[in-house]
């Protein structure tokens, strides 16, 4: 169980770094140069990159920081934190699925930073689901 929370905290730190980078790009008005392999410019300058006036990446950074905090608290025995972690990660996963859909079918461009974030969230989902799976067995 401890290893799972450590893994979740490390993954959420990676997600936090990724989301922070995108937030800074957004706040400084920087757009990533267009290349043959990347559609980041299109994704980051799209209308979907902002929610209620806030950069979506900033919301993501806050979510990853919350996941990190909850994982650390759960690691140190705060059981309530582990219970909050699961619905939060499930919600983040559904948001990631929605953002993946937007990239694939609406904007029709993929940004590697956004895909990296989606991959992190998917890994976190697998982790929290494994906790749900093994917890009853442990009890």
């Amino acid at each position, binding site marked *: 169980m401890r290893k799972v929370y450590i893994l979740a905290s490390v993954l959420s*730190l990676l997600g936090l770094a990724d989301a922070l980078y995108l937030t800074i790009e957004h706040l400084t008005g*920087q757009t990533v140069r*267009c290349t043959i392999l990347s559609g980041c410019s*299109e994704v980051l300058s799209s209308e979907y990159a902002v929610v209620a006036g806030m950069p979506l990446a900033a919301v993501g950074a806050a979510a990853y920081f919350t996941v990190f905090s909850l994982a650390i608290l759960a690691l140190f025995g*705060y059981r309530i934190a582990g219970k909050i972690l699961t619905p939060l990660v499930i919600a983040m996963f559904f948001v990631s699925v929605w953002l993946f859909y937007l990239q694939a079918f609406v904007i029709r461009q993929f940004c590697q930073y956004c895909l990296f974030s989606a991959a992190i969230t998917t890994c976190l989902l697998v982790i929290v689901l494994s906790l749900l799976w093994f917890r009853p067995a442990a009890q």
Partner: protein
Amino acid sequence: MKRILPFIIILVVLGVALTSAWYLTRTIPAAQNPAGNHPPSAPGSPGSQASPADQPVVNGVPGAEPAHTHGPENAPVKLEEFGDFECPPCGLFHPILKQMEEEFGDKLHVTFREFPLVPTHQHALAAASAAEAAGLQGKFWEMHHIIYDHQKEWSKQFDVRPIFEGYAKEIGLDVDRFKKDVDSDAVANRIMQDGKRGHSMGVKGTPTVFINGREVNFENLPADKLRVVIQNELRSAGK
């Protein structure tokens, strides 16, 4: 101690994250959007370090001839842009370059090279072809401007040909000839020649800008930075 250790870890991570964000937002220059009006950096300020002088001069293979240029051939500052009409940063750079041309007048010579990023941008090749077809009737820059000015409108459409034909009519081209020229070998060859030049100069993305043969770093393309780069080149040339 064990009860408060997780809170200490969380606070440390929060502190590191906020400090990093604060540091990076201060060090990364704010890009100037078309509506923005950032004050120019004075010579001697940190912005004056924005010089391509430390970059090597790149001599690529020749591009399409005659090239699409603005400004006198003997201008002390020669700027060459490799651009993609569908690339959003190229769309943001377009008004910045126009502003530089207005500010520096006959001291600046601008060349535009086609570098459509296929397949990343589905309409980039059509846009480049439209601009080159307009060029065959002597109105490349008119088409160049109108395509960039309306980038957000046409780039989301499924079929862009009627839109570009509308632009052709708007700028006074012979539309029937334009429709033929868009698919002509002459237009395709020009785009290919510019692409070959770009590849030979190490261009990997757009916009890529060279000033007097030296690549300008992407972060120096906002107006306040680019202005300093051009001023530094003028100073080096003794103008």
